């Protein structure tokens, strides 16, 4: 409320915008306060539910004494106890209106670009997913090119040299020297990968 009062002292032309921003910030903070409780609740739920999904289908063993379920059951039970204690303390703080300090988030919230981070994660997942389809040479070069652009590099020479030389060096090191069977891709991509490997003298 004090922040909203403070916002009322600013010029009328952008007062509404400022108040909206403060309300938005308030909502974000309120949601952030729920994160520790939600994490604890999620872990508690997982610890309670997972024992029922330990063995798939009809594979449940019939062993007396310490069977294959003994250790995971014990670990999950302890996990449930710990997350229940954590959840209880979070709920108690929420009820009292206090701010939880259980999770120590990094102090770089103002300088952090969440949109950029999410795009980065999407790029990494896409790279991993496309790796077996298009093969390592193409996926690696494509990923390095897109990642450099995403990272803010615009120099054409850098955008050309980093993916090509980088991919060639990695191929030589891992497929040539360490003989690691990295994916060559499927169909036409396989033929392309083989051609690249022949060009580099690896095949």
């Amino acid at each position, binding site marked *: 409320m004090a922040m909203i009062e403070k916002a009322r002292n600013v010029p009328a032309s952008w007062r509404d915008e400022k108040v909206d921003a403060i309300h938005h910030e308030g909502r974000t903070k309120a949601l952030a306060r729920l994160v520790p409780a939600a994490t604890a609740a999620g*872990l508690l739920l997982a610890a309670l539910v997972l024992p029922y999904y330990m063995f798939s289908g009809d594979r449940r063993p019939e062993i007396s*004494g310490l069977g294959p379920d003994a250790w*995971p059951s014990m670990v999950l039970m302890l996990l449930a106890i710990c997350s229940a204690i954590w959840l209880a303390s979070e709920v108690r703080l929420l009820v009292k209106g206090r701010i939880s300090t*259980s999770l120590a988030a990094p102090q770089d919230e103002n300088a952090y670009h969440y949109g950029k*981070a999410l795009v980065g*994660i999407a790029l*990494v997942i896409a790279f991993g997913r496309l*790796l077996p389809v298009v093969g390592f040479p193409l996926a690696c070069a494509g990923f390095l090119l897109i990642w450099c652009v995403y990272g803010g*590099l615009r120099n054409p020479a850098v955008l050309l040299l980093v993916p090509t030389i980088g991919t060639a060096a990695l191929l030589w090191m891992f497929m040539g020297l360490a003989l*690691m069977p990295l994916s060559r891709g499927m169909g036409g991509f396989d033929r392309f990968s083989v051609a690249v490997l022949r060009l580099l003298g690896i095949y």
Partner: protein
Amino acid sequence: MHTIDLLMGGFASAFEIGAFLTVIVGLLVGVVAGALPGISFVNAMAMALPFTYAMDVTHAMLFLGGIYVGGVFGGSISAIMINVPGTPASLPATWDGYAMTRKGQVKRALTIAVTASAVGGLISALMLTFLSAPFATFAMKFSQPEFFAATILGLVSVIAIAKDRPVITLTSLLAGMAIGTVGVDPLYGQARFSFGISEIESGIRFVVVMIGLFAIGEVVDLVATDRDLRPRKSDSKLAGASFSDIWNVRGAIARGTGVGCMIGVIPGAGATPGAVIAYGIEKQVNPRGKEFGTGVEAGLAAPEAAKNATTGAAMVPLLTLGIPGSAATAIMLAAMMLQGVNPGPLLFIMDPSMVYTIFAAMIIANILMIGAGVGVAQVFSTLMRTPPAILAGFIVVLSLIGAYGVRNNIFDVYVCLIFGAIGWAMKRVGFPSAPLVLGVILGPLAERYFLTAVANSRQDYSVFFTRPISATILFLALLFALWSLWPTLKSRIKRQPA
């Protein structure tokens, strides 16, 4: 006197040009392999094994020993520079080492790490030379209950890294242990939590989890915060660690070395529990323990000394009893057996010159490691001058290759990506990821030792408390837990109104 004579003979053999070069090449291979996340030094040793066919047994052991010594340290280079541990044992190096890098003290951190590692390794190599027999006798008394107790001590020491948040640290550790139960169980071969997916039945590898949690989140953060990891010019006076800096952490190095020698000699324990326990103990003992995690030199030096101290110690049961205590020493055993040499007490009588050449080579390798470590770190330091976008792109590619290389299986890449996304989310909300990784590493070990100990004792659970060494270690674990939790408990008690 006899031992000194034999050792001098060993030095003479190890300083022959061929042998000397073999150690250096092994060291460089090990440091580079260790520094690359996922391409562990154990993989490098396995890949190097065929090359040893062409060597005699002494050169083969010098080569593999060099990779082993260099690789155990190498993992800390990437841990300190980019917060991605090259090997599981380098995990503690991310806590204070990377914090130093963020302060612009990357060279200082690397100098302290390599010196502490070299000192730890050197002392353990000397221990291997002079105290093999009593340590081998001590190691022989260990069986499944003792292995379980030692693993529990490792798990308990994780509480010490909790920053006044023991419940959340324990939750993270247990979540990791739960992930570690995925796959076939060690006693009955029954698949758990596979959800009908055949690839999951073979389990989730801790290396894959570690790469995902640390590398992906770190890389995304590197770009999303426009962070610059290059050493700052304003910190040039702190560029390298001086002798007084090293002298100031002598206590931490000594304690770390002691812990590493004790843990390393236990077959199956290895460098990771050694480094974690050393960090936990140092956090409690050191006057600056409360500042650990913010870039304290002792927090880096102790686990570094401990993990390299396990190298010489792990060779005690290998050479004296023929028992490999880790994957690395198992490869060394394979190399010896391929050459027709059976390690054990008879080896000291049949071929003492070879044994003492290995001892001398271990001592030399640890001294040379300072040069090799600094050299490779210099190359990595130069790489860090590249724009963060390029650096981050290559870290992603190397990390995914590392995940793939664990079993040459694309499924591991997918697991790595899932844990990458989870790791990023954990980092943003501040949920500790290090205990989770340690849970994934130590949980399966604890399960295997627990089940086999109980099975061997015909379901008698008291076996852990009736055997003196096991009971002592468990008692120490309990004391350590209470010792670690005491500051938190004390502050809670003070806060309570009378």
